């Protein structure tokens, strides 16, 4: 199967220190790759290489073609990116925020066309945000802003979607509903998703493939069943992690270990 997105021997260093070292992973067209690992492992850095937001060595391939030398505009037509903490400018209407997704298709001096406007409305409708179109994007709740970010992603119409901790700030119910939404959009539109994700249970339930990263290197890559094991997670996170089956779903928890008083 041709990998829609492939990282080949990615190196990233900051001030001489490697943040990523010879990282090679891939995900097929329409798949969902979850990147998991401890804080500072290099998850966000890996995601930023796809979006062209960080300098790197090695190669990023989309449908077998390297995109490293492409312009930012060409790249933005292939890859949309939602950072860990997106900036929602105060005073900007939701409509205008989603309209930013059309930027890669507009010439430097051009204004948005009727088709661009229609694309924005279509994205707002898909995420049931039409009533929010005139609202100030900075005044929305966490779950609402995530939907607005996804609407911008849809308006950008890029086949690859990069989500860096998209649900980190949400409560359990909101997180689940946003992840379901991403999964539905992925299935409907054939988008390939790569996301950094802290919640291992959510990763097990939603991602088709998992890359476990520690200290800038890939420790394991495969299906959730192959990677999210007590032995691998115990090695990377802490030994007290348990992988439990609840009604056929995988649940991953960290147990509190009582200290021995002696």
């Amino acid at each position: 199967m041709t990998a829609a997105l492939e990282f080949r021997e990615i190196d990233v260093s900051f001030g001489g220190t490697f943040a990523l070292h010879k990282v090679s992973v891939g995900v097929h067209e329409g798949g969902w790759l979850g990147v998991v690992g401890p804080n500072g492992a290099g998850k966000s850095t890996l995601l930023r290489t796809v979006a062209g937001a960080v300098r790197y060595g090695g190669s990023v391939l989309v449908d077998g073609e390297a995109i490293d030398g492409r312009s930012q505009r060409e790249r933005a037509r292939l890859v949309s990116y939602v950072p860990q903490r997106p900036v929602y400018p105060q005073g900007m209407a939701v409509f205008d925020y989603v309209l930013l997704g059309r930027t890669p298709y507009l010439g430097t001096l051009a204004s948005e066309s009727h088709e661009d406007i229609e694309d924005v409305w279509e994205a707002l409708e898909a995420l049931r945000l039409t009533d929010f179109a005139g609202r100030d994007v900075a005044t929305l709740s966490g779950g609402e802003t995530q939907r607005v970010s996804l609407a911008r992603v849809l308006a950008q119409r890029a086949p690859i979607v990069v989500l860096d901790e998209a649900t980190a700030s949400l409560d359990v119910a909101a997180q689940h509903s946003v992840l379901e939404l991403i999964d539905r959009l992925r299935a409907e539109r054939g988008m390939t998703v790569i996301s950094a994700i802290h919640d291992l249970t959510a990763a097990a339930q939603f991602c088709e493939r998992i890359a476990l990263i520690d200290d800038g290197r890939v420790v394991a890559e495969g299906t959730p069943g192959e990677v999210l094991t007590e032995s691998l997670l115990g090695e990377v996170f802490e030994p007290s992690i348990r992988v439990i089956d609840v009604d056929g779903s995988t649940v991953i928890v960290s147990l509190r270990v009582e200290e021995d008083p002696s």
Partner: protein
Amino acid sequence: MNAGRPSSTRLRWWWVGGAALVLAGSLVAGVMVGPIRIPPIEILGTLINKAPFVTIDTAISDRTEAILWEIRMPRVVLAVLVGSMLSAAGAGYQGVFRNPLADPYLLGAGAGAGLGATIAIAYGPATSGWFIDPLPLAAFVGAIGGVALAYLLGYTVRSGRTAVTLILAGVAVAAFLTAIQTFLQQRQSETLREVYGWILGSLNTAGWEEVELVAPYVLVCLFAIFIGRRLLDVLAVGDTEAGTLGVRPGRIRLVIVVFATLGTAAVVSVSGLIGFVGIIVPHTVRLLTSSSYRVVVPLSILLGGAFLVLADIVARVAMTPAEIPIGVVTAMIGAPFFAVILRTSKAVVS
């Protein structure tokens, strides 16, 4: 299907119409107000006679026509050019630096112009022997030089070329140039009053010559900032996200700063350092309409011109026959007006 839906925060026609009316009203007031009262009908007649291919009979005297055409009109037109340019440049700076306190003097244009003017006033030769007046030239070169120095410093910072390093470089350059300017001013204390008067700004010497000098710069620079307004909205999400949307933030910043600085240097060279306009006008527009630069830039151009014409009227008539420096007026009427807008508006300044 989408009939009746708003198609983005575009310019509403009544916003543009309202701003154009305010500008037109200020122009009429600017031409009418002065020590000699000229009836509106005579103003209209003179203007029609100045238009090509049209002549009408008016009872206006040559003296009145000279006052109108040679003194008041160029002054009002220059006020529009200066006000529009400073407001658009302020909006541009606020956009590229994502900083509500940014104004056209942020990167050292003001300090550079001040230093240039001080050198020209304190050490320059007598103007009469020169082909051109060295004061505007020195101020223009000083403003461009100040910003160029800030860019050079900001772009050689090893930790990274960001908007913040550029602002810090601008602060350092401005402090340095101001220190030299103050030193020179102290050394030549007999020119203190003249230097100080220039720094506070004035449109007192305005004739058509000044208008012709700055108009080409202003029109080109206003056009450049106007067509960059959509990209300023993209920069609002920060450099990283803007980059992933397919634009190059550093390049946009450079282009906007170049045109904002060039236009600012041109107007400062003939009007001195008129402060506050570049901050107050764009923010007033934001509070009254929208924070989108597609709205802020064009409305700032219209209302910035109107604001400076009205400020100049106050500068001329408040203490007749003496004139108040226009920089003092912009702050004295601008600050309370802005405070009222700030208190009564429901919008939030980003």
